[in-house]
């Protein structure tokens, strides 16, 4: 199975396997990655699943929708690489990449 490495807020690396079509949130949830609250369970309504992608993701991930960008604007210290984990759909092209969980969700 392809996998993603999450760096949690304590800088611990956690590797999570996924099925293509899963969201980043689903992968993180089942690997019990710390620091992602996901209060709305993936509904793009809470902005507590904030993560940072690194530049290896450029060009191989769909850009955020307007709804997601609007939500992200209220995450803690968003960057141009900020995403909501529940809105990023994973494909085989993402195998082996790294995601950093936001230090704080509030």
């Amino acid at each position, binding site marked *: 199975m392809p996998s993603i490495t999450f760096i949690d807020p304590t800088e611990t690396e956690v590797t999570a396997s996924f099925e293509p079509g899963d969201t980043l949130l*689903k992968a993180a*949830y*089942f690997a*019990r990655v*710390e620091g992602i609250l996901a*209060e*709305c*369970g*993936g*509904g*793009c*309504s809470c*902005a507590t699943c904030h993560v940072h992608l690194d530049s290896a993701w450029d060009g191989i991930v769909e850009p955020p929708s307007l*709804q997601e960008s*609007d*939500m992200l*604007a*209220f995450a803690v210290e968003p960057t141009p690489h900020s995403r909501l984990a529940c809105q990023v759909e994973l494909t085989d092209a993402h195998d082996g990449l790294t995601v950093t969980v936001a230090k704080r969700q509030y």
Partner: protein
Amino acid sequence: MRIAIIGAGQATATLLQTLIRGEFAGTLTVFHDEGPRPVQRPPLSKTFFKTKTADWLVPDDLMQHPQIRWIHRTVTAIDPDAGHVIWDDEHDSFDHIVLATGTRSLKPTIEGASQDTCHTLRTLADAEAILKRITPETQVVIQGSGFLAFEIAHALATTVASVSLLLKTDRAMPQVSEVIATALMEDCPATCYPDTQIEYIQPEMAKLHTSKGPLACDLIISAIGSVPNAELGAPWGLTDQYGIAVDATMQTAHPRVSAMGEVASFPNPHTHRTQRIESIAQANDTAQVLAARLLGNPQPFQATPWFWSDQGAHKLQIAGLATRDDQSTVITHGDNTRVVARHQGEQVTAIEALNQAREFMAARRLFEQGPMNLSDLMQAGSAFSLLQSSRS
């Protein structure tokens, strides 16, 4: 400390995660009676009929955690004085009992209806039963006026032959302002019948008789509200007119019993009313408050309510909570966006944002800062501008 938790829904999922993260030292026994493993509810009325898959609510390692015992049984009674939880012919004793029993769907009695034709939607089993009964030829009638009824209408519209929606009064979604309800109604794929009551059904003729005349119908889904599962607390005087009565730390009148989630009733600091609130946010926030107390760090409930509903391509998000009689003032009105302030005089009680996530999030932050004033909001022109000016 040995804690029994009765019910395994959203609130319990959050309580377990928070206690384990907080290095809770005792044991947790969870009684649950809804299928082998808890699932998330919101997708059942939004995406389930397309994806045909449900999302687990509790991750694997909590299902197998050494401190957590899962008992797949319905609890029939509790005895708080003795610390007993009773199920089948068995009982066990605990230091503390948490009632997290949620609500169940209100089921109408419809003359002529059979189990096959008459459904409600709350559990995965409910959703699977509906899925099993629908084909591209099915003529579905939904009974209900709230968010759930409209979500189901959108979710089924492309899968079945027809969807009719019977509204109890002439008003859809009475929880939100008329402006928002009208916008959502205009885009609803169902044929809406206002002020229409069901009289009886003739399944063999695929006909539903209503106060407005007969309708073609193979299947009814009733989304007419829910009833709190408060029965376990009633013999011990732990209930009020809404559900299980608790204080701001989720403690009932009995020191050994707490309650949380949508069965719990308490004076809400945002609305200043004693009430139960049916939402994911309420389940999470009450579970956090209870977890803090069980971890020895009690904090009163302070969260501002919030809610969302996905209806087809529309996303409605509400920060705060209004009563049905609160006034409505439109703040912005775009092509497919609406932002409405609900208020009691000058005091803003809720911001309803249709396809305007930015306003929803800004309003949540504003409510966290303190009371919101209507004239300030009108002057700023949007919740976002008001938030920015409050920060500069």
